């Protein structure tokens, strides 16, 4: 069994209640931090841990905290990003549903470190039942004196507010989230200024992912150095992976960063291998936004060494042969999956979710969806394939927020690695449009 930092107690019956969570050692980090540490000491431990943002960008959490501006007389905010809407990602949903107090405890420790007295958990509105679970947990913690006024007699006050979203992927982007939290449309803001300087209500704000915040109780209890000892080099600690697609055991797994990708897919401890009678074709390793890789490239690096589940190893080779860890949405495709259809599906998603502020994203996502639809439905031309590459390139890097890149990369990478499959759709429209039809050429088989 690998190291467990977040999910160690997930199977304890009743762990969603305060009492059981407390019996398993819960809320000791709040006691330790508030009674024996200064806020700066808490920040210092988080810095030492090396933990990187689990929402996808991987920015070091302690560094972000130390960038928080602290002008006199201006409130500071902590906002937890529980929007979780990246296709293939469902880990935060799982964590909040099963062990809500871990997030609440993390919010208290983190808010204390940042000097925030009002903190928010922004949860995608579809997860209303999870919002009720969190609100119940907050009530329990408040009744026990861990939240509210004068926590544990320390003089520190904290109020936690759970805010529902309204169904918009873009509100996972931190500045769109802040706009939404202010009661507006979710249009991303220009960065800089980063939220750490101008965030919620124009005040200094830290936005962190659910899983990032949930690491803080362990870090405070065990020390930042102990956390940094888990994992490999700059990929410290553990990571929740949401595994879906054609595997035997879809689900959420906590892995120590550094597990070989091959072991993650085939070991019974994790995915349990590809479903019977089928074999691996491709993987999207970090949520729909990251480049798709064919089987040979996801399992091995260019030098033939095994690829590992770390930020560095997954991105090894750049976009030519690599991908990204992203949010850890690990989507597995066996040989029955049609890459063209999946690419069209994802591009429809990005077109649907573009907020429409920048023309390369608004127009480009619509264009890509249309062209992919045409190819998938047997009306494509050979030059459409290069047109897609061209449109993707023109979106990339030319937009306010990275949704544009997120829309471009899946298309560009699918064509890079599975070009023959697109060509086959163009040259064999009749065969390709049969239900369940998949290109069986050499390349797809790797």
């Amino acid at each position, binding site marked *: 069994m690998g190291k467990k930092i977040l999910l160690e107690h997930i199977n304890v019956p009743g762990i969603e209640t305060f009492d059981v969570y407390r019996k398993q050692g819960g809320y000791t980090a709040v006691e330790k931090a508030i009674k024996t540490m200064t806020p700066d000491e808490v920040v210092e431990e988080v810095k030492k841990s090396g933990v990187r943002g689990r929402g996808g960008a991987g920015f070091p959490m302690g560094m972000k905290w130390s960038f928080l501006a602290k002008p006199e007389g201006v*409130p500071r905010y902590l906002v937890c990003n529980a929007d979780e809407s990246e296709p293939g990602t*469902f880990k935060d949903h799982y964590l909040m549903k099963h062990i809500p107090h871990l997030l609440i405890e993390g919010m208290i420790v983190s808010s204390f470190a940042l000097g925030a007295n009002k903190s928010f958990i922004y949860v995608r509105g579809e997860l209303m039942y999870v919002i009720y679970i969190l609100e119940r947990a907050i009530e329990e913690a408040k009744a026990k004196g861990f939240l509210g006024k004068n926590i544990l007699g320390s003089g520190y006050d904290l109020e936690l*507010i759970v805010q529902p979203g*309204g169904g*918009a992927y873009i509100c996972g982007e931190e500045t769109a989230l802040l706009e939404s939290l202010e009661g*507006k449309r979710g249009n991303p803001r220009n960065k800089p200024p980063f939220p750490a300087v101008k965030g919620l209500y124009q005040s200094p704000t830290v936005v962190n992912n659910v899983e990032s915040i949930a690491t803080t109780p362990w870090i405070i209890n065990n020390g930042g150095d102990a956390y940094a000892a888990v994992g490999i080099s700059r990929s410290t600690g553990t990571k929740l992976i949401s595994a879906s*697609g054609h595997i035997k055991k*879809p689900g959420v797994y906590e892995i120590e960063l550094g597990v070989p990708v091959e072991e993650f897919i085939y070991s019974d401890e994790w995915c349990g291998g590809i479903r019977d009678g089928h074999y691996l074709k491709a993987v999207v390793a970090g949520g729909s936004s990251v480049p798709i890789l064919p089987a040979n490239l996801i399992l091995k690096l260019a030098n033939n060494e095994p690829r590992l589940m770390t930020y560095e190893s997954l991105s090894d080779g750049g976009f030519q042969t690599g991908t990204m860890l992203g949010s850890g949405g690990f*989507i597995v495709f066996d040989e029955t999956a049609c890459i063209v259809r999946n690419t069209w*599906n994802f591009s429809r998603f990005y077109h649907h979710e573009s907020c429409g502020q920048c023309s390369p994203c608004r127009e480009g996502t619509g264009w890509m969806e249309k062209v992919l639809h045409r190819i998938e439905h047997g009306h494509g031309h050979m030059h459409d394939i290069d047109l897609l590459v061209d449109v993707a390139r023109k979106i990339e890097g030319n937009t306010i927020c990275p949704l544009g890149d997120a829309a471009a990369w899946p298309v560009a990478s699918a064509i890079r690695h599975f070009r023959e499959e697109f060509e086959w759709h163009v040259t064999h429209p009749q065969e390709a449009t049969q239900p369940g039809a998949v290109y069986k050429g050499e390349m797809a088989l790797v």
Partner: protein
Amino acid sequence: MTETQNTVEFTPERLAKAKEIIARYPEGKQKSALLPLLHVAQEQWGWLSPEVMDYVARMLDIQPIEVYEVATFYTMFHMDPVGKHVIEYCRTGPCCLMGGEEVYAYLKQKLGIDAGETTADGLFTLKEVECLAACGMGPVFQIREKYYTHLTNERVDEIINELSK
């Protein structure tokens, strides 16, 4: 658009909840209550009519347009009347890998409607949505707060028959 008359009102419980929500934001930042209030409103009326949106605007002391532009941005809010049960079906990639498209075709055939339509008896409205953060349990749809996971044609039969009673 001219503002509508005050023809709608929250139930006493929802009014109390709304006031509690409004009070939790910092002074002067009450507009933050907009999305939560729209959810409460939709829970009561099923959809957001102009009257309802104007009511929420008055409650927050903001312009009606500020409510309309927000309500139309977010896909969870219904701008037209809906059936008793709104089925929000996930159409995104990971669910499709698990047979989501086949089950969806079956569901549409069973209900005899397409996305965006309501059955003649007013029982079901079908909506296509994007990833619901439950991809490991796909195919998935949601009705109000409840997730229905691991869908198959048989599961669809069970669920629809149960809800049709």
